[in-house]
């Protein structure tokens, strides 16, 4: 069941996925009827306020969460469990502290029993060199900085050469400067690879900078409110952020997330700190 749209194959199809959690009689609706496709070779971001269920949606696509209704289809097959077609990057690097950086990066191949492992050790080293981790193969995760750990997590997601990358706010735990670095790193890597990416973020700039399309989700119960094509051609580089169009795109999307009618004003009453007469 391969679906064609605009001449390109669909890599990920999310078909009316809803997800509700219930605990202690309280039912929380995390995602309501999400419906979209990601074509092969496309970089799509899902953008929304924190707690809007966008991570849940990604976990459904990754096969780590089950949809309450609807389904996710990955490269023509309905997702029921995690697939080896997917490289996954979490918000936290999730490196095992008892393994060296290189051992962490080659772990997926070890678990899959891929032989000879040496091939992947060599590949892991080359990936490390490419992301700027040269010389840290035998370092332990605790000896690396936050940004370096997430670089290692990117290498781990790439080691299997999986055609689909799923990223769950991978840089949101990093400081702003490191985050900019990581965005440029991911953009550069991405443009050299032929992969499909679904990227979760709550940063508008990040989404516009990296993506071919940005899907906007509303706060709970989250629904998809917009699907915007980003007009910058590839290959791009950091300079597109200086383009007036970049600012315009960001502004437009900000308007979709926070409609001006619903903006709160945050006004303190003028009498709040006024001197009170003593009784």
């Amino acid at each position: 069941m391969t679906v064609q749209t605009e001449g390109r194959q669909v890599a990920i199809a999310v078909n009316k996925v809803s997800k509700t959690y219930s605990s202690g009689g309280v039912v929380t609706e995390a995602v309501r009827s999400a419906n979209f496709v990601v074509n092969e070779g496309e970089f799509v971001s899902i953008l929304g306020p924190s707690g809007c269920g966008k991570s849940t949606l990604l976990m459904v696509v990754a096969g780590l969460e089950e949809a309450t209704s609807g389904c996710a289809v990955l490269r023509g097959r309905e997702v029921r469990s995690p697939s080896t077609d997917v490289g996954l990057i979490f918000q936290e690097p999730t490196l095992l502290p008892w393994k060296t950086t290189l051992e962490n990066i080659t772990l997926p191949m070890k678990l899959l029993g891929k032989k000879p492992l040496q091939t992947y050790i060599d590949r892991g080293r080359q990936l490390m060199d490419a992301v700027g981790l040269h010389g840290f193969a035998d370092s332990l995760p605790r000896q690396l900085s936050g940004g370096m750990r997430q670089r290692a997590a990117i290498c781990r997601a790439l080691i299997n050469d999986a055609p689909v990358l799923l990223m769950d706010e991978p840089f949101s735990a990093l400081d702003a400067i490191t985050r900019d670095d990581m965005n440029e790193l991911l953009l550069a890597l991405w443009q050299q690879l032929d992969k499909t990416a679904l990227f979760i973020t709550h940063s508008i700039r990040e989404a516009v900078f990296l993506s071919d399309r940005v899907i906007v989700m509303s706060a709970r119960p989250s629904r998809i409110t917009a699907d915007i094509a980003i007009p910058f051609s590839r290959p791009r580089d950091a300079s597109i952020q200086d383009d007036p169009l970049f600012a315009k795109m960001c502004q437009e999307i900000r308007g979709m997330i926070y409609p001006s009618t619903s903006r709160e004003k945050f006004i303190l009453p003028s009498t709040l700190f006024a001197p009170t007469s003593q009784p």
Partner: protein
Amino acid sequence: MTLVYRNAVGQKAAFKSILVHLRPVALPIGTAIAGIVLWEFAARILAVREVILPVPTGIWDTLTRGLSLILRHAIPTAKEAFLALALACLIGIATAMVLSYSRLLRECVLPNLIALQFVPKVALAPLFIIWFGLGTEARLLFAVFIAFFPVMISTAAGLSNTPSEYIRLSRALNATKFQVFKEFRLPAAIPFIFAGMKIAATMTMIGVVVGEFITAKEGLGYLILFASSRAETSLIFACLIILCAIGLTMYGTVLALEKLVTQRFRIDP
């Protein structure tokens, strides 16, 4: 001039750093020595009878004069204690692994094992004599019985408390059940396992001595009872010193093993 000044500062700093490093060793040892000195003088000044409380120098005298007798009894005690600790750790870890592997088994067995702990275990010692006789086996098995439980509970807790993000990663990477155990759960449980083993080291000593109280014809527990029947209080204290030494050696062995394993598996202590 400046050079001399700098050297003086350097020496002072080096001296300070030595003090800082010695602190965790020097303070407890100093306190213990002060306590023993206080004991010696207080017992002499208050003229406490030797049967009630012998002075430290008297105990040392008994220890050195009766060393061959004490050591003869210390050897079976030490052997039993070490063997019991090793068995308790092996059985405790193995049981916990089996229980963590099978949910059904865990749900059937674990609550009962915990309920069993509410029986005061020392009270079961006579049963071990009925079952295993008056020999080494009864004492050994009783000590194992007392000590294996903390190891099992800690190991089981460690194996089931793997951080959830590691488990999520293992699922995302399609790890098999055995791989999840070997690569994720077991390394994460190692600090827990050693915490249990440290408790077990003290529990085995209790088990062996209680066993010797009620069964033995040899061992430090027996010697203590013997000394007590003849009102040789200083011999009791001399035996206690050797018991402490055996207990410390066992604890030290566990610590050394922990260091070895955490270094081998690069686990943050």
